[in-house]
């Protein structure tokens, strides 16, 4: 699963992909060669523009949708934010977490407590939730320095299961099993937005959208710089990574911290969305499994997988709630997890990209030698010049 999940990152190992057709010459002859699109060329920019126009279309459709559909879309985006976070740890660093519901819940409770007990404005609580969950992520990620795979999964699983218990223990702060209710008035949109108190749904829709975009850009930049390479190297071969100078301990811990922080931001929005928090209902192990399922369905280690995952986490239970005494979603998620491991380990996004690569392939631009106008072209380039 890990080896194929970087399919999307075609620029990182283009040589492997372009050499693929030559291995099966007969098949390559039968099929038309894929159209090669250079990164940064006009065709590529056109593709990006079409994608952007489609995205803007979907967003405006969502903005004009009815209250119920819009709240569902908000929920999709909130879960997508959390799954982007999970993706950093599980998809890119290979640290499987079965306890991200706890970070999600921690973010939600941070927001809830700050609003209810201390009278903060909802927006102000998001950075606090981020920091709190980052620290919690660092702490939970600490064991990952010494332990791997299955063992770390047990630790996160225990963390996820223990979370509601801890919340209920601190009843005076969290409301315990009775829950924590945030009043509508406290969740009112800020004045500068121009939305009234009863237009909270619209405000939350735009807020979630902005946060989702910010989080996705952050995640994109994170995985495309050298730090992201360190994450993926750690995932693919820890020992090789450390012998190349990657500080595996720091990378794993910080990755878990960032992952927890992003999930916490999702949770913070979820608190505003839900308005009332009950740990025993909302932040159980099943939520953690839903998030993980969403990630696997969307595609581990892909940048757009989390959105598909969010859609699945919200809409699969919604459309199947009438079957099987309300339990069919769990069966479908479980079956999907198993089927995907066999059929498409890279998730739907990965599979789609693999399919698209048959026809269209985006390659990095061929490097052009940089030649000074006054430099005689027959002279060999000096050492240190760009070529």
């Amino acid at each position, binding site marked *: 699963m890990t080896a194929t999940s970087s399919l999307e990152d075609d620029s990182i190992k283009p040589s492997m992909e372009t050499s693929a057709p030559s291995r099966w010459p007969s098949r390559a002859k039968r099929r038309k060669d894929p159209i090669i699109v250079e990164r940064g060329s006009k065709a590529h920019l056109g593709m990006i523009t079409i994608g952007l126009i489609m995205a803007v279309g979907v967003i405006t459709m969502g903005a004009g949708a009815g209250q119920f559909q819009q709240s569902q879309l908000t929920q999709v985006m909130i879960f997508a934010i959390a799954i982007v976070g999970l993706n950093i740890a599980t998809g890119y660093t290979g640290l499987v977490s079965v306890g991200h519901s706890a970070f999600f819940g921690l973010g939600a409770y941070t927001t809830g407590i700050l609003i209810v007990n201390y009278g903060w404005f909802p927006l102000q609580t998001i950075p606090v939730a981020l920091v709190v969950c980052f620290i919690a992520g660092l702490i939970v990620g600490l064991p990952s320095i010494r332990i791997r795979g299955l063992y770390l999964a047990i630790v996160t*699983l225990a963390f996820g299961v223990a979370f509601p218990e801890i919340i209920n*223990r601190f009843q005076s702060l969290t409301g315990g099993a009775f829950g924590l209710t945030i009043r509508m008035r406290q969740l009112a949109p800020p004045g500068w937005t121009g939305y009234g108190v009863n237009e909270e749904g619209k405000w939350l829709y735009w807020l979630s959208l902005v946060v989702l975009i910010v989080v996705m850009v952050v995640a994109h930049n994170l995985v495309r710089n050298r730090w992201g390479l360190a994450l993926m190297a750690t995932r693919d071969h820890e020992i090789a990574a450390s012998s190349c100078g990657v500080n595996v301990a720091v990378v794993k811990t910080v990755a878990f911290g960032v992952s927890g922080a992003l999930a916490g931001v999702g949770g913070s929005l979820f608190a505003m969305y839900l308005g009332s928090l009950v740990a025993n209902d909302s932040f159980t192990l099943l939520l953690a*499994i839903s998030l993980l399922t969403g990630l696997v369905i969307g595609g581990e280690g892909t940048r757009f997988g989390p959105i598909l995952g969010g859609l699945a986490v919200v809409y699969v239970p919604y459309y199947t709630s009438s079957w099987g005494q309300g339990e069919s979603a*769990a069966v479908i998620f479980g079956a999907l997890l198993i089927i995907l491991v066999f059929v498409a380990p890279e998730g739907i996004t990965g599979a789609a990209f693999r399919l698209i690569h048959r026809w269209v392939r985006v390659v990095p631009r061929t490097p052009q030698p940089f030649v000074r106008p006054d430099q005689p072209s027959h002279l060999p380039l000096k050492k240190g010049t760009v070529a």
Partner: protein
Amino acid sequence: MSIFLTYLITGITSGAIYALMALALVVVFRSSSTINFAQGEFALFCCYIAWWLTTKGWPIAAALVVAMAVGFIMGVLAERFLVRPVRRRNEVATLIVGIGLFTALNGADGWIWGPADKTFPQLLPDGARDYVNIAGARLHYDSIGILLSLIVVVGVLMLLFQKTPLGLQMRAVATNPESSALSGVKVGRVLSASWGISAAIGAFAGVLLIPVLPPNQLDLSSFFNILIMASAAALFGGLDSVKGAVVGGLGLGVAESMLNGYVTFLGGSLQLTIALMLIVIVLVFKPTGVFGARRIERV
């Protein structure tokens, strides 16, 4: 003194339950070096089968036998068709399959039998008068029964591992699958058998423990906590040691009961957090467990 004994007995009873489930985890780990995340849900499914049979008028003892048989078959099928094909790929894939089984089985139980709690019939006598008085503390018969079953399961496992050809083959596969395959051991069959045995132990433990452990009813989340406790116990013993799992399970049970009894500021509601702490401490300071064999990994 009698209060202390009461806490001790409560602790040993729940500890024996954790130890039984931990043994199920150990049997799988010993042969295939993975943790079966769906272990608890296998047991839950078997419990539902047993419950369903008793509603049809079966005696609980017969239902137990059927549940164990169903467990064995489930274990074998899951290993053969779901785990074995992905095992060679990597650990994460095995993990995801386990989590998928976990979710799917849990949902299937709810789908078939409904999400409402079920009153589970007693296998062991638990009447108000069914106890032995030890220095003022009551040792109930069902506690004795659970301890005895733990002893029986440990005895059978010991016999299996030490005295039977299958046990020898299991140990060989655990040590080195390739070499044992070359010596004529049917590795796949041994792996399937160990998964089956493990699931059967889980079913046995489940039917015993549901009426004993609070809330004394069968519901969909019955095994979440038990799985965590059992993992903590098994990890304490290094995941591959029968002795370690038993000591870990009993120790965890007693520690939990004592902490709840005497350290009252914990309020008796942080059992899972204690298990979490234990797991983290064991893994960070002694990843091979207290009884585990040191594993040497080749780079």
